[in-house]
């Protein structure tokens, strides 16, 4: 079992004729993902590594029965691509593109919300269900199947943490990169009920950072509504206030948004917080 993506996921790649799109389409297929085609406006009828390219999302969905899109379209063209996905029969849109104007994201996200389409990202490394499929750019060889659900705002930090879990023999169900932007389609809070309902997930690892309040909101939800336990990691203890630490969303704008404040609040809510990555597998083993 898993959340969001599994063997029934049929993926189209928006921006498949680009360098990143074509490369990762191939990597996803190698891992077992059912990639059924791609979309690039103006290039309908071409093929990329044997996959059909369509000129629009709707044509692609109609021809392939795709239910999921993964987006590599460059930021300045992403608005149209997102709006197109929002006005389709897709169920899930995973947006890898980084640096999309916030108002463009909001506008498309509003439309997806009202059309019942789930957006993951933007600025997301994607989603991987261990041993089954991956949608996005995560290095799949890091994952082994097991009982840990992972949700994170980062890319490489997530890989580091998954590698430490795998090295300790703690496999994963699904790992979701929710993205490092301030406006994202799927947040920790949205994923928690999915992990709660997934019979194979026993523990959730939440990888957070400075900025916003989402980690705290998630911990409160977990405490009140869930039977499963969570372990957290928060990056940015050494980040100075008022400075954007790479991610558009990683910015301390108030005292509540510092790593120290988040760690203190999570611990007061009973969520164990690792100070070093190597502590995460130990804490997971303790709460499991």
């Amino acid at each position, binding site marked *: 079992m898993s959340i969001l993506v599994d063997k029934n996921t049929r993926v189209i790649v928006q921006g498949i004729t680009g360098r990143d799109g074509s490369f990762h389409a191939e990597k996803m297929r190698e891992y077992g993902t059912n990639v059924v085609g791609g979309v690039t406006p103006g290039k309908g009828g071409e093929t990329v590594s044997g996959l059909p390219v369509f000129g629009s999302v709707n044509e692609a969905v109609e021809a392939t029965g795709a239910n999921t899109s993964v987006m590599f379209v460059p930021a300045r063209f992403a608005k149209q691509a997102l709006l197109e996905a929002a006005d389709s029969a897709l169920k899930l849109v995973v947006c890898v593109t980084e640096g999309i104007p916030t108002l463009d994201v909001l506008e498309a996200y509003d439309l997806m919300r009202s059309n019942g389409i789930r957006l993951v990202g933007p600025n997301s490394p994607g989603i991987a269900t261990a041993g089954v499929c991956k949608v996005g750019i995560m290095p799949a060889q890091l994952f082994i199947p097991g009982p840990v659900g992972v949700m994170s705002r980062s890319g490489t930090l997530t890989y580091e943490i998954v590698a430490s879990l795998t090295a300790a023999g703690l496999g994963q169900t699904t790992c979701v990169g929710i993205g490092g932007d301030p406006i994202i389609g799927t947040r920790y809070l949205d994923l928690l009920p999915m992990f709660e309902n997934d019979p194979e997930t026993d523990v959730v690892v939440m990888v957070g950072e400075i900025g916003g309040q989402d980690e705290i909101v998630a911990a409160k939800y977990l405490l009140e509504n869930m039977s499963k336990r969570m372990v957290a990691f928060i990056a940015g203890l*050494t980040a100075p206030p008022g400075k954007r*630490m790479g*991610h558009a969303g990683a910015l301390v704008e108030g005292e509540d948004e510092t790593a120290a404040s988040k760690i203190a609040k999570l611990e007061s809510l009973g969520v164990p917080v690792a100070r070093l*990555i190597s502590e995460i597998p130990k804490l997971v083993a303790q709460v499991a």
Partner: protein
Amino acid sequence: MKIHEYQAKQLFDKFGIATTLGSVASTPEETVSAAQSMGLPVVLKAQVHTGGRGKAGGVKVVSSIDELKEAARTILGLTIKDFPVKKLLVAPAVKIRTEAYLGLLIDRGASKVTFIGCAEGGVEIEQTAKQSPEKIIRLELTVARLKALTEIDCLDFARKLLPGAGQADDAAKIMVAMARMFLELDCSLIEINPLVIDESGRLLALDAKVLFDDNALFRHPDNVALSDPESQDPDEVTAKENRLTFVRLNGEIGCMVNGAGLAMTTMDTIKYFGGSPANFLDAGGSSDPAKSIAGMKLILSDPRVKVIFINIFGGITRCDDVARGLLAAREQFDIPVPIVIRLVGTNEKAARAMIAGNGMILADTLEDGARMAVEVGNRA
């Protein structure tokens, strides 16, 4: 992207938001001619990209030319939170009857564009929100509603913002103008604090704070033109030109990492083992060796750096490209401090082979690397 108050007020004026436009001066003499043309009393305000100007002595009302010259000299000599004051806004002093807070921003909690208001202005809105949340007025809008916003939609909010005053219609007009400006310029914040009613009953934006969405600058050359290079950290500008993200800190261990979350974690781990990071440097997800060279130059421009810790978790980033960049950097310029390096992931074997015998200290894990960097730094 930040702009100065005087620039924000010029934009307000263009969008029909009544404000004390004033004029900008960079010498005491220029403030005198500005004040003479608008008439005393005037207010002098330091134009720096930071808050808390008032508390730092960067804002002063003056009513004589002597007082003006003196105050201008003093404020132009100030440095407010690391920002030297190079420009002053000279604006007519306003007699205030009431003041309120009005802002329009992207609310990440609600995923909406949101008007925030408070009938008490001139205060720290974050403090008010925490201590007396009942005093905060909110109007949450989707982008579609923001585009379609009319004065009638704003009236209830405006009446709460200016209770008992007859200016609610004017406030609603300002809100519609703010909405238009927010959308047309791709803002991430428009803040009027305070929004005042003056003695004659006019509604005025007495201060103006505007932030532009960095991600949208590609379609707004006019916004980019408002950027003040003098008020930005030159290192951060250099980093941006090389598609790196760099933030200078006060420590001794230079860091180069791929990915923002991992870069923060690397700094935190250094601190955990008793060291102090000199910088945040996210070299990003690409494999361009030129980035490693630019990154090394930035780190080494700080004489306090005693050791460099390079931590790469290769995914899209190829470890051998990073190694190639480092070796090229050593050819181009002297690297006078030891390097601790940890490379895992894509092409790590090739990278380790390239590095071997070059005097760099190889670490197997992030934590080992951080510990070694701290030790090496302590010995230096």
